[in-house]
């Protein structure tokens, strides 16, 4: 079970990373979401002591799953949610200012801008 959990986390993280490397801004955001999911899954499996839900009344003698990791995962999920939402609207604004969703166009704009600024400053010495 430990190995399976670790592998699943690895797959989530790896696929997320793969998407982070794409040209499409939206895929990049998907990548971030997947990577966050990997972290959430890791958090909750850090309490692999599975058992009944930690809600009173508790059955005697049966293992209780770790409530703290659940609380942490919850918090992490919500934080990731808020940030992903912000990131998505950022994608939209990047689109409206560059009129492209392609990172290549955006990098090109960056290089172009940098060069135009540099050429304004005449090199000296």
């Amino acid at each position: 079970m430990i190995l399976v959990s670790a592998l699943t986390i690895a797959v989530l993280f790896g696929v997320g990373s793969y998407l982070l490397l794409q040209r499409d801004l939206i895929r990049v955001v998907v990548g971030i979401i997947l990577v966050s999911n990997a972290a959430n899954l890791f958090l909750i499996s850090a309490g692999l002591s599975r058992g009944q839900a930690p809600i009173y009344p508790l059955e005697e003698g049966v293992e209780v799953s770790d409530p703290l990791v659940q609380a942490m995962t919850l918090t992490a999920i919500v934080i990731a949610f808020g940030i992903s939402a912000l990131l998505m609207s950022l994608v939209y604004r990047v689109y409206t200012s560059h009129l492209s969703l392609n990172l290549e166009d955006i990098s090109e704009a960056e290089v172009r801008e940098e060069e135009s600024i540099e050429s304004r400053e005449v090199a000296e010495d």
Partner: protein
Amino acid sequence: MRPRLAAPVGAVFAALAFAATLWGWLLAGGGTVDLPWAPSWDLRFTLALDGLAALYSLLATGIGFAVTVYASRYLPLHLEHQGRSEADIPRFHFFILMFMGSMVGLVMAQDLILIFVFWDLTAIASYYLIGYDAHERDSRRSALMALLVTGITAVCLLIGALMLYAAYGTFSLPALIEASEPGALLAAAGALIAVAGLAKSAQVPFQFWLPRAMAAPTPVSAYLHSAAMVAAGVFLLGRFYPLIQKTDWLLDALLVVGLGSMAVGGILALTRNVLKQLLAYSTISQYGYVVFMFGLGGEYGAVGASFYVIAHALAKAALFLTAGAVTEATHGETRLSHLGGLRRELPFLMVASGFSAAGLAALPLTIGFFKDELFFEAALERGGVFPALAVAGAVLTFAYTWRFWSGIFLGERRSEAHGVPAAMTVPVAALGALVIAGGLYVAPFARLAQAAGEVTFNAPTPIDPAYHLDARAENLMALATYALGVLVILSRSFWIGAAEAFARLGELAGPERLYFASLKGLNAFSDRIHDLEVRDLRTRVATILGPTGVLVGAGLLFTPTRGAYEVGAIGPLDWPLFLALILVAVAAIATVFPRRHLTLALVLSSVGYILAVVFAFFGGPDVAMVQVLVETIMALLFIGILVLLPRKVLEREASNPIPRRRKVRDAGVALIAGFFAFAVSWSTLSQPALEESVAQEHIRLAPEAHAKDVVTAILADFRGLDTLGEITVVGIALLGIATLLSRGRLW
């Protein structure tokens, strides 16, 4: 404040400082200030007016006074020629005073770090003064060069000081002199400190910055060369001499450097055409004498060095001021080849500067005579070839001094000239008068030098320069100097070709060339590597994931992995979870393939929903519920954004094929990323859960918090702060979305 007021203020301040120093030295008999500065670092603010400090402070304030008086007339004219406003005047006087103050502080400081602080303050002041005409490219380059050479080598001083502290546990110089033992550490620290001093004194191979610094206005040059900056370098050697002289090879190194500077400076001074350039090389050579004397060692060396500094400062300051006045008088002429025969237009200046020139050339009846006397004595004491070398150096001085003075005032007139204001000649005359006074009555100067020498030598130095009308070796050497000097002057056409070839060689392969080449090379190299700099988000991400994988790999190599990893059993109850996990993995992999964004969004949601199932199987109904709800809202937002984006753009992205090579590369990086996520999570999860986990406490205490659901109790009570933070993040996200989508309007 009116700009014109700056000059009187500066002059009065300098005069007061001079008077105070004189009073402190003669009447109050020195004195010490000792205050705690940074106790946690054993730093003390210790100033002491000892002999060495008195000598250099008197020079700094006295010549500073002469320079400010001179500048009161010179500077407005200078600015007028350049079409600049008078508003620039106060800046000049500010930095001259700062220069003076830091110089005085430097020479009195007794704490190594304090010395370093004042040392760099002089560098800052000189940087601004050399770059005073900042609008000229030459000026900027020269200022930068002076700063780089002296500033970077100053760090050597700091390192040396810290080495001494590490070894002896104190920053106090007197204590260090007491405690230090000869050895490799002392030699290394001494060498580092000497490097700082030599660079500031423009000694070979650092000499190149000084002639460049002539881009500064003339009063600055005069001050820089005689009483501040360059003098600070030899001062530092004098101050640390008790430590330096404990290492023999260091003294020998000083000898070599001193000789080299004497030769390079002297020969180049014979070839320079521009007045201030000639004087600059002369300075290099003159301080070469001083370093040479330090290298010779002995009491003659110590006192001689101090005396030499006094004599040279008086003469050199006057000569620089002369050069400035001459240039002013001839409407900006700076070249020796275009000057000459000014004896009629500037008779007063001719006589006044003649005294100083005589002093520099070490003629009798000037203070200069004694500087050479001590110099020769020191060389004689050492014996060997050194007396001959000393004479050779003195001959060069004699020759180029004559060249300077005669080139201006004698011969035929080659340029128009008018008179110059009195404020520009009186300081020259005053300094010249001092040169003669020293020649007639040397005792006060000798006493000062002796007191300084005692500090340098760290022992009494009973030396008494005087005229001796007999055939002792020093006198013979002096006579030889004059004779050979005349010979050199007369045979100019004979050797000038060789000297100029030497100068050209220096230009082609000298340290200045090296400086410019390395600066240029550095910039070119910087441009080259900047072209390699990543400007692409994908590569930015890859350069994070890749090295992280490497670090994780290194971590795996360096720690034992045996028994650290558990496969973990799969019990009968685990199968649903197992399947759910597999599904998550499959769904995650599925996100790679869809081309259309809407499909992508749906696949992503499915990952989220299956994860919720996983969470539920982990015994976390709360987490599962939140995951489902969050996923729902996320999907809505996602689709909302997709609706916002024009379909054409989305389709273009969707149909944009990814080249095969990219795919392979991305997959490689993704594999590395997956690998480290795997390594970190597997290694951690393999650890058995701890019995003493704080979660047990939470379960136990939940009823006390009046809660039945422990998770909720944690969220709202035990770790409520986390929840508060979490919703704050969500709130900020709303604020951010509002900022991005509707200029921050929330309603």
